[in-house]
């Protein structure tokens, strides 16, 4: 593989939240959620981010997307990173039809006229493995897997180069999980997407990713290629994680 340029560089990123004060006169503490996180991502790479609950995975994603204030430096090549959320039930507007939801990203970008937008929506629905009839349905008429496909379609409408998937399959059952992962893999190959894949499932990460980072308590404790991390880990915590997942090496 030729050397490709970085699509995302994060250097010494720190995020802290104000502790919720219990009383009016109590001293307010700041909780450090991310401590000095640095990494970079190559174009067309699938980067796994693994860690236990509360380790700051989602916070990192939000910081990259600019949804929360942070200190440090985040440089990205693509200006519109998109995100796939964990819960496919909350990430589609229940009052709107699928077609409307998928057209909205184009509308917001000042995209083409109505007929062209509908055509794009139709293409994208087929691309993510749904029927074009789904455009006329409401999200609550779809199953979890179908919803997640719509979410992926919506995230791809603005043709982002970086996609952040925050536990995209953990709310789905196993067979649907496999289908969604397959879809992500196919889109990655077809469109040359870079994916930051956040998960707590080490097996899924092994299957999907080129490189992987292990996070604990807001710090990156280990990063490297999948082979390095899985077979020659240096950190004890990584070993514990692998053991807990039943992966014995």
């Amino acid at each position, binding site marked *: 593989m030729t050397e490709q340029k970085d699509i995302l560089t994060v250097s010494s990123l720190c995020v802290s939240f104000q502790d919720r004060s219990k009383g009016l006169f109590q001293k307010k503490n700041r909780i450090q959620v991310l401590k000095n996180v640095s990494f970079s991502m190559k174009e067309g790479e699938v980067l796994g981010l693994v860690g236990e609950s509360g380790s700051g995975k989602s916070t990192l994603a939000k910081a990259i997307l600019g*949804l929360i204030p942070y200190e440090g430096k985040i440089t990205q090549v693509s200006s*519109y*990173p998109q995100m796939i*959320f964990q819960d496919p039930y*909350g*990430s589609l*507007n229940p*009052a709107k039809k699928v077609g409307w939801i998928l057209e*909205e990203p184009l509308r917001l970008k000042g995209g083409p006229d109505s007929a062209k937008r509908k055509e794009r929506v139709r293409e994208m629905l087929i691309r993510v493995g749904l029927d074009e009839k789904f455009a006329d349905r409401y999200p609550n008429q779809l199953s979890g897997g179908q919803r997640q496909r719509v979410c992926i379609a919506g*995230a791809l409408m603005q043709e982002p180069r970086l996609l952040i998937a925050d536990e995209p399959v953990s709310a789905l059952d196993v067979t649907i999980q496999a289908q969604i992962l397959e879809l992500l893999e196919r889109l990655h190959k077809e469109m040359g997407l870079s994916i930051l894949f956040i998960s707590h499932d080490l097996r899924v990460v092994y299957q999907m990713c080129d490189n992987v980072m292990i996070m604990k308590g807001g710090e990156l404790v280990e990063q490297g290629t999948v082979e390095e991390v899985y077979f020659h880990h240096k950190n004890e915590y990584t070993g514990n994680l692998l053991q807990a997942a039943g992966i014995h090496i």
Partner: protein
Amino acid sequence: MKSGKKKNYNFIVGGTITGLMLIFIIIGFFYTPYDPNAMDPSAKFAGISLKHLMGCDNFGRDILSRVMKGAGTTLSVAAGTVFIGTFFGIILGAVTGYFGGILDEILMRVNDAIFAFPSILLALVFISLLGSGTYQVVIALGIAFIPSFARIVRSEFIKCKNMDYVKNARLQGAGHLRIMFVHILPNTFTVLLSAIMIGFNNAVLAEAGMSFLGIGVQPPQASLGRMLSEAQTYLFRAPNYAIFPGLVIILMVLGFSLLGDALKREE
């Protein structure tokens, strides 16, 4: 969702009553058996007959015609009131619920203060500032109705603003106004609709109450509250004068509250 399990009788009965009342009122806009303001001295206190289905009042005016026109007036005032209340309530609730923070604190405390007054009392204050008349009643009651709608909309916005689809819209580059009124607002419609129904009831009663006190719709324009207030003097001589306007008020309120209840259950 409508499930076949249990029929929603509230919806059927409420819908029927409201539908009949609306037909009654709409007919009243275009046709009444007599001119509602025409006095006929020979028909003073005429009883119920084929000629005058609900009898006549102290000036010999046909009560049926006046009830038809009066119900229309009451309905228009109520509709205007609810419109003002909903319109400004949505704006206020959306802004405070979506942005939160200090602006929310200030506006909602003012809201609470207004909410603490009974709406009729508050409307009386506005009437004394604006003078009495139909339009003034609409404005006064409308202002008094804003806080309750603002609260409902605000709580719905707080519920929705942290949903992932709102974050998603932000990522795609939607502005705050677009998120508020295009993405979130449609999700409040079910709750808002039943609130509008209840608000409609309160508005009908409030208008009737204010006209009864003589500060609402001015004579000779007919209004249900106005008619009740005139009828109380002749309660024993001509009970039909009070009964029919009262009955129409009851049916109107009953229809709307059953409908509101049914909509709440459909959620």
